[in-house]
């Protein structure tokens, strides 16, 4: 394919960095991406990561065992603080998931071709994040073994769930989200499974990938339907992702607590979700990219775009904080203003200060191209933002609860080792799954990358991608 070069230069549009390194060919893309999975040995960095995360998974198992053996009392929760780490973690994980869907669905609809390099990875992340999130609503129940009572199924008593409760909305939203994300991800994988099948050498690999590929052969008729379906899915996932975090925010805004009962929550939660999601994509992708030497596909330009998205959503989140402050003052509601004062100056003031630093100040650095281009700094920022978003949920859940209407029942929440154990445990599970995925499946969408290679009679005008 010597002429790839000439074609490329011939297509000659100017941009700082192409989305795919100029020296790539159809063959090289397949060989590189699927080769990483099939041929290559597991890199050492990854083995270490897997080892460490497995430790975390043990912690998770222990925490769950102790929880089930003794009850919610092993956590620091009490009356008035009936929710703390459990729901904080739930919202945090769900939020992280949202970036994946956004990248793969919304950016697809917006013809942001640069997403082709990262969408597969982001989708996987969504899937695993939502899986982790799903654990918490179940485990936080006083009687987890009865969790299925939240599902409307015909039972001997013929009692049904209370559909006015946001928790039931959660059940539907989260399950829908999990299913759709999975289908979206899997459909995207089918053609790539096919190419894995076709280059695989070992029989068992051929067999397993063959089964997953379901006999895909790249027929134009198929491609036609495939594209339609894929587009439809994207179209469906887009409102879904918005709805899911809105529903999650209803858990709070439907409540009457000052600090929960706020109309700003849905948009501000969705923005926050995408914000934290992108941060997590960066946190995971920067090391992975290094380990697998994928600079050719995940170029600095990708990172730059993601940084910009973080900046934008970060600003929306900041706006959320500001409007909360404003309404606390403007509403003239004594409870509201007390809640806000307590949030700032109360016993959990440190948390609020930290979250302002992490989510309000840090992203502002991304205004500077130098910082956006500096991978290390970008990585650090993304980690800080993750912490910040966790704190945001903690502040919303705990500081609103611990001092509500009657001062007589005010209290404090102090996490126990089991609170931490469960949280760290899910982190372990998440990272472990991500790396296992990278190990056995093409972490970059092969056919969509090929789609980006220009040829005579076809120009991918990636310069149109939103800056």
């Amino acid at each position, binding site marked *: *394919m010597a002429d790839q070069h000439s074609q490329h230069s011939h297509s000659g549009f100017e941009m700082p960095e192409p989305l795919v390194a100029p020296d790539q060919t*159809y*063959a090289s893309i*397949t060989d590189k991406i699927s080769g990483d999975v099939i041929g290559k040995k597991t890199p050492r960095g990854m083995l270490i990561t897997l080892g460490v995360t497995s430790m975390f998974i043990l912690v998770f198992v222990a925490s769950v065992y102790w929880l089930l053996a003794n009850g919610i009392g092993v956590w620091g929760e009490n009356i008035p603080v009936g929710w703390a780490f459990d729901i904080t973690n739930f919202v945090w994980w769900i939020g992280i998931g949202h970036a994946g869907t956004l990248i793969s669905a919304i950016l697809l609809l917006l013809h942001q071709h640069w997403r082709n390099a990262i969408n597969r990875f982001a989708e996987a992340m969504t899937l695993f994040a939502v899986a982790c999130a799903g654990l918490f609503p179940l485990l936080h129940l006083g009687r987890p073994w009865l969790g299925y009572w939240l599902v*409307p199924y015909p039972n001997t008593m013929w*009692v*049904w*769930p*209370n*559909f*006015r409760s946001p928790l*039931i909305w959660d059940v*539907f*939203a989260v399950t*829908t989200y999990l*299913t*759709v994300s999975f*289908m*979206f991800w899997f*459909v995207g994988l089918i*053609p790539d499974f*096919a*190419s894995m*099948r*076709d*280059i695989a050498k070992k*029989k068992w690999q*051929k*067999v397993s990938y063959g*089964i997953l590929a*379901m*006999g*895909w*052969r*790249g*027929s*134009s*008729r*198929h*491609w*036609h*339907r*495939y*594209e*339609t*379906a894929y587009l*439809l*899915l994207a179209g*469906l*996932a887009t*409102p*879904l992702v918005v*709805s899911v975090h809105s*529903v999650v925010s*209803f858990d709070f805004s439907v409540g009457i607590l000052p600090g929960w009962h706020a109309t700003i929550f849905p948009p501000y939660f969705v923005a926050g979700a995408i914000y934290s999601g992108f941060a997590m994509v960066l946190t995971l992708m920067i090391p992975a990219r290094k380990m697998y030497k994928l600079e050719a596909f995940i170029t600095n330009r990708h990172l730059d775009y993601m940084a910009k998205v973080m900046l934008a959503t970060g600003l929306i989140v900041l706006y959320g904080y500001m409007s909360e402050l404003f309404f606390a003052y403007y509403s003239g509601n004594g409870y509201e203003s007390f809640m806000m004062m307590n949030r700032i100056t109360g016993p959990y003031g440190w948390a609020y200060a930290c979250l302002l630093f992490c989510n309000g100040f840090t992203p502002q650095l991304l205004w500077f191209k130098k910082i956006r281009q500096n991978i290390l700094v970008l990585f650090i920022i993304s980690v800080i933002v993750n912490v910040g978003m966790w704190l945001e949920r903690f502040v919303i859940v705990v500081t609103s609860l611990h001092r509500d209407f009657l001062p007589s029942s005010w209290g404090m929440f102090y996490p126990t080792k089991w609170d931490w154990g469960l949280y760290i445990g899910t982190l372990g599970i998440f990272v472990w799954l991500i790396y296992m995925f990278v190990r056995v499946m093409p972490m970059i969408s092969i*056919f969509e990358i090929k*789609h980006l290679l220009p*040829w005579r*009679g*076809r120009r991918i005008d990636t310069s149109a991608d939103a800056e």
Partner: protein
Amino acid sequence: MMAEFDAPEKILAAAERAAAKGYREMDAFTPFPMEELTDALKVKHTKLSLFVLCCGVTGGLLGFFMQYWMNGIDYPLNIGGKPLYSWPAFIPITFEMTILFSAIGAVVGMIFRNGLPRPVHPVFNIDSFERATRDHFFLCIEATDPLFQEEEVQAFLESMEPIAVTPVKHVPMREPDSYEDFKDL
């Protein structure tokens, strides 16, 4: 009759010419979607969207009336002084159900209309077909085409400067469970 090309623009040209020549029963196999090719081959537009729409509507209605019936009719309870039929509270689930059903409709519809899963297919009998998912492009004019004349078609395809032109035989199916299948899967 299958022609193998090594660049997208070549197969596209071939397809256009073939279509001009009046061939209809054609199909192409490419490593990535080529909208241009689909047009050239005159693939007729799919009804998938309509199907998905129906699924969505079904899901929505189902979702809403499930809640209405369960909370309002089958087991009415006075909850927080709210009316039995508190429709605003029913909206989120109605919405989620709509999405869920449409999405399932889209995926399942696509897979089955494509006749997948199908582990065994004549085209796999061509050894070089493995590259159809990698970097080669295949154009196939089927014997069922009214204008199909084996020699004619072969000559026509060879005039397109392909890498190779191979006839695809409808070899009889072998026992799927024997490992032989997978050799050319």
